[in-house]
């Protein structure tokens, strides 16, 4: 495959093309020709859109689980509404989230442009490996029906890839503490408290309202507040993928504007997140709507209003909280705030475990993917990792079919496990 020509030069013949590594000029460790770089760019874009898709379907439950559980909306209607709002929300975004990785890793300058030394294929490979880590974690937690933060999964993947590529200096540990660890601990507590107070107030104030009218009325409030959560989700989360793709285009050299996103990127991200939302992560929806708390519509409204208020205010108050952590905390709080409501703390405990593992697990996958792509190197390395990603995604999907959860059984009675009693034994699920 390769032969030493001189002591400081390495030649490699790959798929009929000749590449040269020179240890004397280490500025371009992954020298590739233009076709190869373009191939890598294309794979990064496809992977980023795939991440956006998993982001959508993993998070449908954050907004719609309570509306589905209380019957305020039929399951299919709920995901369709959420999908439309995510689509609209994505187009509403006027921010350019180009510096999204700057919180946790050192691969971009303060203005969002790639670090000079990483320009081109190196940064594309890091971003690619990070995205793969994020996607696989999203799929794994979806299989287990556990809500977990898509942003944390993406950050985890990027951190792992950055450590693998640049060493521990590639990571901003201060940022990891202040924008990942502290918010993850704080979000469910704050959201739970707000939702508990809201639920308590609602039940006291509406105590004299006849039961049926109360249930009916709060369904409307629930739909309204859940819609706001969906809209905010579309704006916030699609923005991140737009930023990632724009960063890839800048690294490749086909885009130079640091203050705008190409329109096709915006459109593609909007469609990807909306499609993911519409497919509906039924497994996560079921856990959030039925598993945590037996929820009635007044609790549902308190939970969604708490989520909406916190998600919309937190980033402007200096601490962006994850939609997933906030939504989960809110639903738990709505159980705590209602006298006599059952809260399944064991289910909540499993979620907390998943949240703690999210960052290291996604980081590990991100790091492994980077090593693999870097060792094989060039377009082939990226292609191999992409094929592995596809294979893993198909395997996870196949596994999910053993105990499928969809619009038809999402609201079935919760019996100590994600899988409804009507299906095969639940042993496939942890």
């Amino acid at each position, binding site marked *: 495959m390769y032969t030493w020509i001189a002591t400081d030069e390495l030649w490699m013949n790959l798929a009929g093309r000749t590449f040269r590594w020179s240890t004397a000029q280490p500025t371009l460790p992954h020298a590739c020709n233009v076709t190869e770089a373009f191939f890598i760019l294309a794979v990064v874009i496809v992977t980023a859109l795939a991440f956006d898709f998993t982001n959508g379907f993993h998070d449908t439950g954050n907004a719609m689980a309570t509306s589905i559980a209380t019957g305020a909306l039929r399951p299919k209607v709920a995901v369709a509404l959420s999908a439309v709002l995510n689509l609209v929300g994505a187009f509403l975004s006027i*921010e350019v989230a180009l510096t999204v990785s700057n919180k946790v890793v050192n691969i971009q300058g303060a203005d969002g442009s790639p670090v000079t030394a990483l320009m081109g294929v190196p940064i594309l490979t890091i971003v690619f490996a990070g995205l793969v880590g994020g996607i696989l974690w999203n799929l794994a937690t979806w299989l287990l029906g556990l809500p977990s933060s898509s942003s944390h999964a993406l950050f985890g993947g990027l951190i792992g890839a950055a450590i693998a590529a640049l060493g521990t200096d590639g990571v901003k540990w201060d940022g990891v503490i202040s924008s990942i660890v502290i918010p993850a601990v*704080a979000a469910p507590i704050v959201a739970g408290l707000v939702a508990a107070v809201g639920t308590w107030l609602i039940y006291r104030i509406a105590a004299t*309202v006849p039961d049926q009218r109360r249930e009916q009325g709060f369904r409307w409030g629930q739909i309204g507040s859940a819609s706001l959560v969906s809209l905010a989700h579309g704006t916030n989360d699609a923005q991140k993928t737009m930023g990632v793709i724009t960063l890839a285009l800048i690294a490749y050299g086909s885009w130079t504007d640091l203050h705008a996103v190409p329109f096709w990127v915006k459109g593609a991200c909007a469609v990807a997140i909306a499609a993911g939302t519409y497919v509906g992560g039924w497994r996560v929806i079921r856990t959030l709507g039925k598993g945590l708390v037996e929820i009635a519509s007044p609790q549902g409204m308190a939970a969604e209003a708490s989520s909406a208020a*916190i998600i919309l205010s937190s980033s*402007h*108050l200096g*601490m962006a909280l994850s939609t997933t952590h906030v939504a989960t905390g809110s639903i738990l709080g709505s159980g705590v705030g209602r006298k006599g409501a059952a809260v399944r703390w064991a289910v909540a405990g499993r979620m907390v475990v998943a949240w703690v593992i999210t960052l290291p697990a996604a980081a590990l996958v991100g790091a492994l993917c980077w090593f693999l792509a870097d060792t094989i190197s060039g377009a082939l390395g990226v292609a191999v990792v992409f094929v592995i990603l596809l294979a893993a995604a198909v395997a996870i999907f196949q596994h999910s079919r053993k105990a499928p959860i969809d619009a038809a059984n999402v609201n079935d009675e919760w019996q100590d496990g994600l899988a409804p009693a009507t299906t095969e034994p639940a042993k496939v699920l942890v």
Partner: protein
Amino acid sequence: MEILTKSFVALWQVLAVGLLLGAGLPALFALGLRSLSSGRVVVTEGPAPQSKASALGLTGAVVCFAILGLAVAFGIIVIIFGKQLFG
């Protein structure tokens, strides 16, 4: 240490805004429903619960839901122009 202090300040604010809007607005919604439903929300010595809302109850409900409508509109403005408004 500085991280912790800054986080604590930010969290305190998030909690305050959360309680005001995240718990306060649903409470207002409940107040509107109660008002619509019984007409007894403002005066405790009002008429007994009846199937039709009293004029007073209806007015109270309209006020509550109008404020909620404004809050939702404000929410949408924050979603779109949040960074411009609050930095």
